[in-house]
């Protein structure tokens, strides 16, 4: 009856299993306030406002040149959006009985539907930011590499093929293994 022998503990890519009927019931029981704010008014403009603010702040520091300011803006925005959309799982307040505990915010958006307007905007925005930052750093080779690494870190989790996948066992959870016995009914 031990669940340990059934786990492939060294696999590189694991999948968060598809929702069971209990999960779907819980997810559908209330609106997901954690993720539906991306469709509100002003949620799109705020990204541009934040990027502009970051750029201003970084440039205001005396020893930071314009190129470095752009790179730092790029990195900060990528890091911030990565943590917010792709690292933190679950919801901050309980209204769905923990049905979203294992999903990152990106996976919770629009109930898992792909190619929705919010997702399109959030994917195109880092690309535009990257192109701007390489332009303003005068196409310096090293800056380019740093910026493109940050861009890939943010773009790859947004691909539909990576939906619900986890690498290297990150964000492993308690007894929620795919193979273990859960509620029998």
């Amino acid at each position: 009856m031990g669940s340990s022998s059934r786990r492939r503990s060294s696999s590189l890519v694991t999948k968060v299993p598809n929702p069971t009927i209990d999960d779907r019931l819980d997810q559908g029981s209330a609106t997901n306030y954690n993720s539906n704010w991306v469709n509100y008014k002003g949620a799109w403009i705020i990204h541009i406002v934040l990027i502009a603010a970051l750029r201003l702040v970084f440039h205001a520091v005396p020893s930071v040149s314009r190129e470095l300011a752009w790179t730092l803006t790029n990195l900060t925005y990528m890091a911030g959006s990565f943590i917010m959309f792709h690292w933190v799982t679950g919801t901050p307040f309980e209204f769905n009985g923990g049905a979203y505990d294992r999903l990152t915010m990106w996976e919770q958006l629009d109930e898992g539907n792909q190619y929705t307007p919010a997702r399109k905007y959030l994917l195109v925005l880092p690309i535009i930011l990257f192109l701007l930052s390489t332009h303003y750093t005068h196409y310096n080779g090293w800056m380019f590499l740093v910026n493109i690494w940050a861009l890939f870190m943010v773009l790859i989790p947004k691909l539909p093929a990576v939906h619900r996948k986890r690498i290297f066992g990150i964000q492993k959870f308690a007894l929620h293994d795919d193979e273990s016995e859960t509620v029998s009914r």
Partner: protein
Amino acid sequence: MSYSTYPFVDDVYAYYNQTVTFLGKILDILPGSNVLKTYIKSSYQNDPLRTFIEFLLFVFAAYYVLRKPKTSPDNNYVELTEKEINELVDDWKPEPLVSPLDDMEKLELNSLTVLESTHLSTKLTDGRPIINFSSFNFLGLAENKYINDAAVKTLRESGLGACGPPNFYGSQDKHIRLEKDIASFIGVEAAIVYAQSFQTISSVIPAFSKRGDILVVDEACNFAIQKGIQISRSTIRYFKHNDMKDLERILQELQNDFQRHNRPLTRRFIITEGISENFGDMVDLAKVVALKKKYKYRLILDESWSFGTCGRTGKGLTEHFSVPPNDVEMIIGSLNTSLAGGGGFCAGSTLMVEHQRLSGMAFIFSAALPPVLATAAYEAIAILNRDGGSMLNDLRSKCALFHAALTRNEFFDTTSDLESPVIFLHLTKKSIPYAKQVAILQDLVDFCKDQGFLISRAKRVEKMERLKLQPSLRICISTGHTNQQIESLSSLLKENTDSMLKKHIESKA
């Protein structure tokens, strides 16, 4: 100029040149085209690889933006065409609101009995006297004059209903007093009272245990516990009924699993019943508490049937096993059995109880216990306190009398504990098919009813229970029964089962 010997290619090239120049002129007119042209010109910077990568990014972004939204396979949404929808609508036939009864349901409906009062010696509607051996009135307090007078006084003061959930003007001084009395009776810090005994345990469990938490549950737990653990969405492990070795094995396995995979620490509970609602036997509370301390679990003890019937003065299993009541994190009991009130309670530490005031779903969303029943319950506790154990002794001796009368009986076996006032009798011949056993027992029940004794079968929601249990008779002993009545019932059962069995087994329908 000609680029080749074929004049046709000249024409094609001229046409191509013209189109491109024309498109270029149009693009020039568009706003922002200058910026775009400068950007593209300046972005090349003699680095074709980098430009190629950027171009790929641009193509990818364009592809993503131009894709149509797609519903996710997470949602299991089946896309039907208009034609399919129309076909399904045309094919639909409405089912009747109430479907006709099948045989088992007809049997159940016919076996329902209507009595004239809640007293133990009462009459059927046609006037025949009958002694009620299915009433949960274990200590005879439902007929107690003192409790009735106090209840009538409360009825005149407060009316019948509480008119609201406890958090929204439904709580009265009587509920507060009841909670204090229960807590001091058992010997814990605080208690919270729910309006219905079934909803108590099924609200307490999900209030504390959520997805990702671990529940180790007795496999023969009652239906209310099953619903509670289903709502909680926790991870469940069942251990064999009242089998302490199996419980230890499961706890050890979970511990090993926890250490080997370095799992995050979640809440862990052991859930068991004091006296089992399905079998009537008692759990070894001392051993469970020892195990829970060793493996660091919390214990939820459902004392619905053992509160008011076990222990020297009726405090329940903690008194019976001399376990300090503060060792059990949550003691859940019912007020609708011995205490002649209604509803249920959960007793334990103040923090645990206060959490339920906002998290116990039935506490928030159901009306509060009627103050009449709350009065009856705390008056009953006062009587139990004054009594000091004589009523419980009486009950125990009557149960023992019934058990003794039925020993060395070739037809019936019982799983019930000697001290349990609810006695389950099942047929020893387990090979008889299920439906026939039900029919035999129902015949016995009807026969006893004709002879003036009301017993019943153990009724369960067959389709939704986890375990399929052997059909059994359920006999509830009370202090209001005389010894003679108990002995008459047991001899009635012993003498007539033989003929019942013969009648059913010989008639191979």
